[in-house]
């Protein structure tokens, strides 16, 4: 499964290298990596939720609010660490709230997180009151725009998240239990897995990663205004789906999301280099989401027909 997608990456890269001279330059490729890393950071947490057959539609709004709170905190205290902590805390709290709605109040995940999306969106716009916060210390900006050893900083964060997430899903019992829950929640429950506690965990992580992504995004953009996170929901979901994680749960993983993020970024980067109007990007992303989801649904139907 991963192999096929890696081949896709190579083919795409080859096609782009042929059609746009600017593509295979070092600076462009590093840029692609940077963008992909940001998408991956936002999508890493929600990958876990989708693995457990859940959903988190609030990650975009979450990212935006977290970024704004980080910005305000840095301006207020002058300390980067306080800012980052604020952003992370915001994201985590939203994740916990989502988890509570799904596990304790038994609300269906997509409606609950969709409602949360709008609540957070509203709070974000109210809090910012139309203002923009900009101009942050260089050390902070380095997190998003800087390079270490020639590689963009977000790539290190992405790698760290990938490693941590990979360890979680493959090398801890928690990760295996999450897969079990996604594959068959009732069988998992009857096998003694504390399903509600694990769901709480993945929703919290999803929120936390969205918060972290918000901090990094702020560092990259060097300015915060309400709604900066909203356009990231579709790309994050697209990355997860392209990567092969099934919406029905139990199949997929973080490395897939990474490849999905890379593929998506390559497509969008290609569009930029080919001077296609940026306004077409949400459309292309939407189409990719549909394509990936269709493949997922078709595969599931085929599998069900076989077991019937």
């Amino acid at each position, binding site marked *: 499964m991963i192999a096929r997608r890696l081949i896709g990456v190579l083919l795409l890269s080859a096609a782009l290298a042929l059609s746009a001279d600017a593509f295979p330059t070092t600076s462009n490729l590093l840029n692609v990596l940077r963008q992909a890393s940001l998408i991956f950071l936002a999508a890493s947490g929600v990958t876990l939720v989708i693995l457990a057959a859940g959903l988190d539609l609030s990650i975009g709004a979450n990212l935006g609010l977290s970024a704004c709170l980080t910005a305000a905190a840095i301006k207020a205290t002058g300390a980067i660490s306080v800012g980052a902590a604020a952003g992370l805390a915001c994201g985590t709290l939203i994740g916990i709230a989502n988890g509570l709605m799904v596990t304790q109040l038994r609300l269906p995940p997509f409606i609950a997180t969709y409602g949360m999306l709008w609540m957070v969106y509203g709070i974000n716009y109210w809090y910012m009151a139309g203002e923009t916060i900009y101009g942050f210390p260089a050390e902070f900006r380095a997190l998003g725009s800087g390079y270490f050893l020639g590689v963009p900083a977000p790539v290190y964060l992405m790698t760290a998240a990938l490693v941590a997430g990979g360890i979680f899903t493959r*090398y801890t019992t928690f990760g295996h239990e999450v897969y079990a829950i996604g594959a*068959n929640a009732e*069988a998992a429950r009857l096998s003694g897995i504390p399903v509600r506690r694990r769901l709480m965990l993945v929703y919290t992580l999803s929120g936390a990663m969205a918060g972290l992504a918000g901090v990094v995004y702020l560092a990259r953009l060097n300015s915060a205004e309400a709604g900066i996170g909203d356009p990231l929901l579709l790309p994050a979901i697209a990355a997860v789906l392209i990567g092969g994680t099934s919406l029905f749960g139990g199949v997929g993983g973080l490395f897939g999301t990474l490849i999905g993020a890379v593929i998506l970024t390559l497509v969008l980067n290609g569009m930029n280099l080919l001077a296609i109007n940026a306004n077409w990007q949400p459309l292309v992303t939407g189409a990719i989401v549909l394509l990936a989801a269709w493949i997922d649904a078709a595969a599931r139907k085929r599998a069900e027909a076989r*077991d019937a």
Partner: protein
Amino acid sequence: MHRLMSSMSSGAVSGQVKSAPTAPLLEMRGISKTFPGVRALDDVSLEAYAGEVHMLLGQNGAGKSTLIKILCGAYRPDRGEFLVDGRPASIASTADARRLGVAVIFQEFSLVPYLDIAQNIFLGREFRSRIPGVIDRGRMHREAQRTLAILGVDLDTRLRIHQLGVAQQQMVEIAKALSQNARILVMDEPTAALSDREIERLFEQIRKLKQEGIAIIYISHRMGEVFALGDRITLLRDGRKVASMRPADTTMDALVRMMAGREVSTTYRRGFCENPGEVAIEARALESANGVRGANLVVRAREIVGLAGLVGAGRTELARALFGADRITGGALRLYGAAVANNPAASVRGGMGLVPENRKAEGLALGRSVQDNILVAGLHRLFPNRWYQFRKAHRAAADLIARLSVATPSPRRLAKFLSGGNQQKVVIGKWFNAGSRVFIFDEPTRGIDVAAKAEIYNIMEKLVADGAAVLVISSELPEIVAVCDRAYVMRDKTIVGELSRAELTEENILKLAMHDG
């Protein structure tokens, strides 16, 4: 002229029921149906006569519902033919079945909760008004009322289904069938959710339907009904027709024995337990959200305790309550002397394992590998510090697969590709891995081939020899008698008796399990 004479002659023989028609209204011949991996029906034949109630008996998995689904056109048989009124008929779709006059009332009613009675009766056959697409509501309600009147039912046809009780909903289903001019009516466990008075009313309806010349195929587990209402009986077991007779020619005991008997178990004998160990499960006056009440039960180490009863007696519900899968609403439950929280995770930690009746939906994640499935309940035990080590996992899984002789080309094979018997072994292996000391088996050998069945008995025997406690639910009397040290019998969601080794015979189980009389 001919009709006049026959009516005169039947009138002359006063007081006698009109003679049975010579040809059956419906004949199903040699019906066979195989699904991947399981032979659901094997050469089953059945005849239904107009004006008669034909009882269809058999345990879960015997093939009754498959037969019904074929009759109503939802499934196509692999082999076999139908004859209606003596003429060959083809049932290739639900429309065909309807045209031939077949109507089925399933246990889960085919009613739309928020539409009213009339709309439900005429679902798909609405009366059109002159404007296309618009329903002639007046006519629909009038026709519905007419049909209800035939059945003697007095309900406002504007009531919505969700406002009706179960018995009333059933009346609507019957009215629906009647309005479709059904000549063959199939009823699946119609009295399962009814009170005694409602059952009486239902029987009245059925007698009315008989008078209208409708052939009724009636599926039931309740012996009392079979003899109160049935004109003919057909018994299915493992997809085959075991017997067909008239109620007058048989007894309740004989029927239950025919449904439950299997050859293999009767030749199986084990060394029974002389000295049971500590008390593993102790339930006192246990009550659960699923209807279990007043359950008093003890299972000790080194014992195989049986839980017998007819379908619907509440055995699975009790097992789920003991395991914490259902909410306990009253009474006390102790696991090895200690109180245990009312959820599966706590029960598993306390050493209990449940092998569910529905192993595919509740026991396994079919899309995951054998290894993942077999380790899933014991992850915490295998890796107490939560770090999953692949080599250790491989070894543990391989070890379990070998110990249980699970036939799989590789531990990485997806569980869905295993045979039923091997899937069951994976579920059992799951509990081995969890270090369970108390095992609850719910119908462990249902739908499993003969050889695998024997293996499962051996596994159970080895478990208790190693000091575990085992509770087995089974609908097969010979199995309970051959395998268990003693058994509890359930009826109506409560435990009505306990039989010691000496008392454990099929007759004694039946006596306790059935409604008296």
